[in-house]
């Protein structure tokens, strides 16, 4: 088990008034050191829930009902709350989507930055302040010393997200989970933040899970991409392969719905229909009602995950067709 993170057969269910609903259905993936795995999918595909489950921060009505999450050789899914507290912010860190609300409005930047250092590194307040100044400097915040005594509302969104990153990286985690950290930011700021995460990743040597629905961001930052749909992983490949040769119709749909600057005449093909809700039981493949290539078998039998190459997986019956009849009839239509 040389990978940094190994998720095996993970299943997450939510207890609701309508009974227990599966939000994540039997997914497996891994993240290596210094690797960036992008999790892509529409809202409701289970990508945020997957990342929260790794942090042990599932909402109180959500449970891991099956499977395991190994960080190096520690099984996170079996850990007690206080054991997770020791890992969070230390070996395991997370940045969230909304920088405007993710920082505590009544505590100073300095207080919030010192916290992980004091908790995990046993620093004194003075040492932690010193380290905080260095961290703010590292994430490109001007006048870091002054910022320590300021409150979040005195900073812009981009600056707050930098503070969030500084906080998440304070203890040099081995795994950073970034849940749409640039979605709420301007495009120029977005590029700066992505660069910053990239730089710090190679400096610290951490693995990164980057959750997004923006294929442009994926192209920029990912080493490997995991596409999720309806709580399942439907395609997993390295980034070049995925963009050059997407196999699952859903992935193709996602890529087709990105506007192309070089070819403005290209029509954007949105995927018809919408993500099934959690309690919707769909026989066969969960994507088949929206799939332009749906065959009879798709409506009856859930597809297994086909290993196309050793780095490319697709959960789609088309692979069986392709593997048995190499003539590529299906994808040309």
């Amino acid at each position, binding site marked *: 088990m040389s990978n940094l993170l190994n998720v095996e057969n993970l299943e997450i269910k939510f207890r609701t008034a309508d009974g227990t609903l599966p939000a994540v259905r039997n997914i497996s993936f891994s993240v290596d050191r210094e690797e960036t795995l992008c999790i892509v999918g529409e809202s409701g595909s289970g990508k945020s829930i997957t990342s929260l489950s790794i942090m042990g921060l599932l909402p109180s009505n959500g449970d891991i009902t099956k499977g395991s999450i190994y960080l190096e050789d520690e099984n996170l899914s079996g850990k007690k709350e206080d054991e997770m507290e020791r890992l969070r*912010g230390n070996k395991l860190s997370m940045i969230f989507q909304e920088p405007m609300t993710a920082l505590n409005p009544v505590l100073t930047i300095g207080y919030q930055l010192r916290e992980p250092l004091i908790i995990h590194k046993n620093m004194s307040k003075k040492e932690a302040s010193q380290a905080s100044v260095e961290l703010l400097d590292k994430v490109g915040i001007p006048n870091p010393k002054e910022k320590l005594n300021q409150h979040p509302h005195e900073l812009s969104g981009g600056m707050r997200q930098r503070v969030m990153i500084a906080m998440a990286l304070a203890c040099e985690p081995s795994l950073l989970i970034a849940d749409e950290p640039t979605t709420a930011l301007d495009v120029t700021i977005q590029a700066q933040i992505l660069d910053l995460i990239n730089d710090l990743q190679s400096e610290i040597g951490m693995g990164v899970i980057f959750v997004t629905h923006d294929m442009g961001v994926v192209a920029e930052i990912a080493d490997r991409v995991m596409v999720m749909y309806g709580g399942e992983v439907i395609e997993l490949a390295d980034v070049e392969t995925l963009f050059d040769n997407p196999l699952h119709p859903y992935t193709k749909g996602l890529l087709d719905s990105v506007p192309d600057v070089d070819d403005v005449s290209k029509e954007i093909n949105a995927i018809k229909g919408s993500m099934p809700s959690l309690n919707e039981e769909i026989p066969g493949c969960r994507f088949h009602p929206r799939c332009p290539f749906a065959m009879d078998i798709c409506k009856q039998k859930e597809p297994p995950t086909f290993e196309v190459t050793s780095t490319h997986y697709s959960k789609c019956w088309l692979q069986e067709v392709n593997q048995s009849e190499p003539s590529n009839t299906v994808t040309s239509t």
Partner: protein
Amino acid sequence: MIGMIVRRILQLTFLLLGISFLVFMSMHLAPGDPATVIGGPNATSSDLEAIRDKMGLDRPVLVQYFDYLGGILQGDFGYSYQTNQAVTEAIITRFPTTVKLAVASMVVAVLIGIIAGIISARKQNSWVDVTSTTFALVGVSIPNFWLGTILILIFSVNFQLLPVGGLNSPFYTFEGMKELILPAITLGTASAALIARMTRSSMLEVIRSDYIRTAKAKGVRKRPLIWVHTLKNAMIPVLTIIGINFGSLLGGTIVTEQVFAINGIGRLMIDAIAARDFPIVQGTVLLIAAIFVVVNLIVDIIYTLIDPRISYD
């Protein structure tokens, strides 16, 4: 901030002017003649006439009002019709008792209310939460006079642990503390219940916020998560409730003071109303209004200490 304080004090001046006018007029329009109070039951009609003439009670009401206002500007709030004591003096002798009672009640209310609220929020829907919610509901619903009477029956009459009434010894003595316990609980219960409800809902709202999730993601332990990250944010609406309650407690509490035979502002006012003692009524009402405004001003200032986003500049 200074500008805000000056502005509020100016507002207060106008507010007091308006209140003084309303109280003055309503007292004079209400049935009942102060001359009969001053003259006593045996006064003849010519005696009453003489009294009215001497006190200026036969002049037009507006003239009397402006006369009264002129006095106030010189610090003269008039004299009690019953005792001839200066209004300011009557209030000054009674006010410390009321302050003592109000502070003690608020200590009870804030301690019980906030702690119960926090526990309820942390163990939402547990038996602790349900119990505390039930007590809160009962606490708000029980009338003060009933609770006070029951407490006296149990602790003073039955067990003879605490005095039946009065609030005469200094609060820092053992006797003084014993005297304060029952009235403070009587008065504090309703406020405690309100504060508990408010703390609970406010905490629950904050616990679900993004920044609490961030704090958890940093590995912040349970205790600082509740006491530092959550409580400070949750205190703002609670502080408003505390301010309003404290303001009304400082204005004297008519029922509780009556039940426990405490000579505070509330009793002073209710006796004065019964006796048509206009100057005392006017003086106490003005005091209560002023206290209310000042306490709320202080609450507004405390907001800025808790939440840096609030600024009055």
